[in-house]
């Protein structure tokens, strides 16, 4: 898929673990792993909003378009 999820980069910058993020955002570890590993087919705006709010970032900090992938 051409959309790359840079969730681990943002987690490292904010010094937050995936477990901590899942508790704050209200998503299961399984779902977050699916998102982090790029296996997700789609993301809801509500989910993106909660992640951006928790990590204090923009959607573009988490999602990247790379046409050559």
């Amino acid at each position, binding site marked *: 898929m051409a959309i790359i999820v840079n969730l681990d980069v943002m987690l490292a910058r904010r010094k937050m673990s995936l477990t901590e993020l899942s508790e704050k955002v209200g*998503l299961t570890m399984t*779902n*977050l792993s*699916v*998102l982090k590993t790029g*296996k*997700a*087919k*789609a*993301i*809801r705006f509500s*989910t993106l909003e909660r992640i951006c709010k928790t990590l204090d970032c923009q959607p573009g900090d988490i999602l990247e378009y790379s046409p050559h992938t």
Partner: protein
Amino acid sequence: MEKVKTPVSIRIIFILNEIIFWLFNLAAIAAVVIAFLVFLNFFGDDLQLQVKLPVAFQANLDGVLMQDNSSLNVRLLDAYGEIQFIDTPLSLARLFMIPLLLVVGGMYFMLSIFRRFIRNVNRGLIFEARNIRRLRVLAFSLLVFWVFWIIYDILMLLFIARDLHFATLEMLNKTQPHATLLIFALVLWALSHIFLRGLKLEEEASLTI
């Protein structure tokens, strides 16, 4: 994905199907035993074989339809019925056991497939590759069943009905199209495609975060 509670109608279908399946098993065992005994000539000359006649006969019988206090004259034009072979010869009896066993085997196969399908649906496992495969197998089996009945009816017409002679009845060159079987097969085939779409939508939904 959260588990959806099985609707009552599906549970009823599941229970009814279980009852029908096990009752059919008993009937199938009886049919196989009878066929076996016929092949072994257990009944000797006393066999009075009764089969459904898939060929129509012309009746031309006049009658009356009673409705409330009035009567309406009617005429019975043609009908289907059953035929009994008095003191059935062994060769004929054995010949009829072959379609009997094929029908019993085919129906057992289809009922088993449907049973597994409805059991999955009852458990909430609806859009699964196995269920789609089962629907397609059922559809194909019904199609084969339809072809079987058409051939059986034609053979009965050619080898039995044409040589039947009654004092007041005339055999017609008319058999039933069994369209219901064909339509049901096509409906199941279309349903399998709908289930496939459902599977793809479910997969997509489960990977939507």
